[in-house]
């Protein structure tokens, strides 16, 4: 009934190929944490947040 994706992951019969993960990553997202504005973070925004008020 189930097919294996990897040895330890079992999937329902449908195997869905929907394309690639298209999230828009930037290289700087790989930077170590610390490059952020704490005040902005407290309001829910970090480096990439949209719509933060200045």
């Amino acid at each position, binding site marked *: 009934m*189930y097919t294996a*994706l*990897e040895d*330890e*992951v*079992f*999937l*329902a019969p*449908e*195997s*869905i*190929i*929907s*394309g*690639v*993960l*298209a*999230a*828009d*990553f930037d*290289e700087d*997202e*790989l*930077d170590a*944490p*610390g*490059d*952020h*504005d704490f*005040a*902005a*973070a*407290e*309001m*829910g*925004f*970090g*480096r*990439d*947040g*949209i*719509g*933060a*008020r*200045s």
Partner: protein
Amino acid sequence: MSARPDPARGAADAPAVVCLHSSASSPRQWNALVQALPARRVLAPELIGYGGTPDWSYEQPLSLDDEARRIEPLIAAEPGGVHLVGHSFGGAVALRLAVRNPQRVLSVSVYEPVLFVLLNELAGEFGMPVPEALEITSVRIAIRRAVYSDRSAHAAKLFVEYWSGVGAWDALDARRQAAVTARMRKVDAEFDAAFYNAMPLAAYARLAMPVQLLWGEHTRRPTRLITDLLGRVVPDVARRELRGAAHLGPITHAAEVNAAIAGFLDAQRARAPLAQAA
């Protein structure tokens, strides 16, 4: 302030639209939605640990309430209330926010919220785990095993290929593979929040605001069943399947999903903003 400039600001007194991104993603997944909502203020904060914000401590299991508490100051600062939009894990957080803040949330529009804990309720009903619960549990266990045996890249591959299909991982360039891999410890913690933070299905029956449930035609069975369960209990609910889309519909089929969100928001225009912040 480090946040990027808002590309499309609407009327300052209009209720804001707060958008919560999915696991291993970023607020930038909503860029197209911002463009699709030119008359609205869109706020898209990071979930815990994204975009350089402080990471989760990992000293205790992450909960949806932990994520909700991080967003609540943003909502409290909006006297007219907010509309919530969420995708996947962000959708689960959005629904938790709606339950916690019924007076401040005007509407909720979520695409496949990963409230996996709801599947466990069916185990009691049937006397054994339903196949959907077994499926996502196997994914969850495999990812945890990989993350905690220093095989985060393998965990990332499992995560990506579960949602996007076999071959999706190899289709990513090395930079994107590295970005997803770097987030897998947090993604693993997000599974904790999605699985083990019990808020029974009945809690969502108390939601008074309009809720739109979106799902992809080709999504995985666990997420399809979750949207079905929610659709049965949420009182004021609109349900919509996106043709051709799967779990990553807001990214792979952004135009269609964003049109559904925009249409739903337009339908709420007659709903008066909250008179006063609590």
